[in-house]
């Protein structure tokens, strides 16, 4: 299967910036991930939501990129949430203990509901 280079789009819902990720998160995704995060930070949102619904591959370098974003968000005292992960990637978030610091939701609606009530 050919590699699908990551595409990231940013939009806003209330006080939440949503980063929609499409494709593969590996070492080649660094530039797209960092650019999307920088765009998501504009407007000083309280919450940044990563939507993984269209992500079909994450390797360990990709997980490190996500950890890097999460660390930046924590340093700026923003909450980072995740949604749309397959069962497999929920497991990977557990293995790498990302889920200790990032709440994971089935879909965007439930994540936004949580973001609005927090």
């Amino acid at each position: 299967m050919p590699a699908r280079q990551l595409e990231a789009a940013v939009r806003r819902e209330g006080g939440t910036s949503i980063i929609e990720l499409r494709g593969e998160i590996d070492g080649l995704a660094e530039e797209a991930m960092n650019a999307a995060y920088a765009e998501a930070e504009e407007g000083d949102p309280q919450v940044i939501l990563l939507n993984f619904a269209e992500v079909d591959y994450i390797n360990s370098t990709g997980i490190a990129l996500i950890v890097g974003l999460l660390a930046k968000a924590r340093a700026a005292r923003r909450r980072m949430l995740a949604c749309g992960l397959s069962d497999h990637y929920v497991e990977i978030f557990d293995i790498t203990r990302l889920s200790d610091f990032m709440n994971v939701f089935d879909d965007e609606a439930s994540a936004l509901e949580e973001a609005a009530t927090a």
Partner: protein
Amino acid sequence: MTEQTPQKEPERPPEQRSRDAEFWAQRVERLEASEIPAGAADVNVRGRREVGALQGFGQLWQKTYRVRLAGIEASPEEVVRVWKEKFPEFQPPQNRFYPSLAGVAPGELLFISATVGGMPVHTGVRVIYADDVSFTVMTPEGHPESGWNTFSAHRHDDGVVVAQIQSLARANDPVYELGFRLVGSTAQEAIWTHVLKSLGAHFGVNEPVDLHKTCVDPRLQWSQTKNLWHNAGARSMLYTMGAPARWFGGMFRRRG
């Protein structure tokens, strides 16, 4: 090989399984080794939980070490195959790695006996990811660092194969943080530089190692001060001091 209480991914039809599923280790609550390689000690590995870059105490650093393997015929896949196979041999003398029989593969433990400032430190890491062009190890509680290292190779745009180590980690507790700030960080950088130089030498290359480091999170996580309890340095010292007693105990058991 780790003897785990695996929480297996539910069986799914092959077409629904992620392409990377076979590269990831299974989740374990705590590390447990079914076999300990000769010469290794599992004293700071057995029963420990893994900790990532978010769980430790100190500043979070991302360090990327690269060496260009200019002129070699080998592919990135071949470089990583050799790297996995000779991982212990590429370490500096004060840093001994003991892989299991299965070697560098998802879920496998690598035991480490290092000497830091003249003191022995027994610890280890677990391989959480391994594919043809990379592998990643994650540290347990008590290890000097909390996080992981990814070892990889890729072909640069100019056609040269580049070998890379990327570390994303923070000191596990306040004592380690102090140590890293005083001398440990430089010592650690020397270790990974040595490993890349050794890898290059294996392929007949003597190129400089490039290091790029970024402080991802400068804050200290004071809530993680409790990690001191698992400090592998202190526990290794106690373990070493107890060696004569273990030796005598073993003698009496054999005679009895």
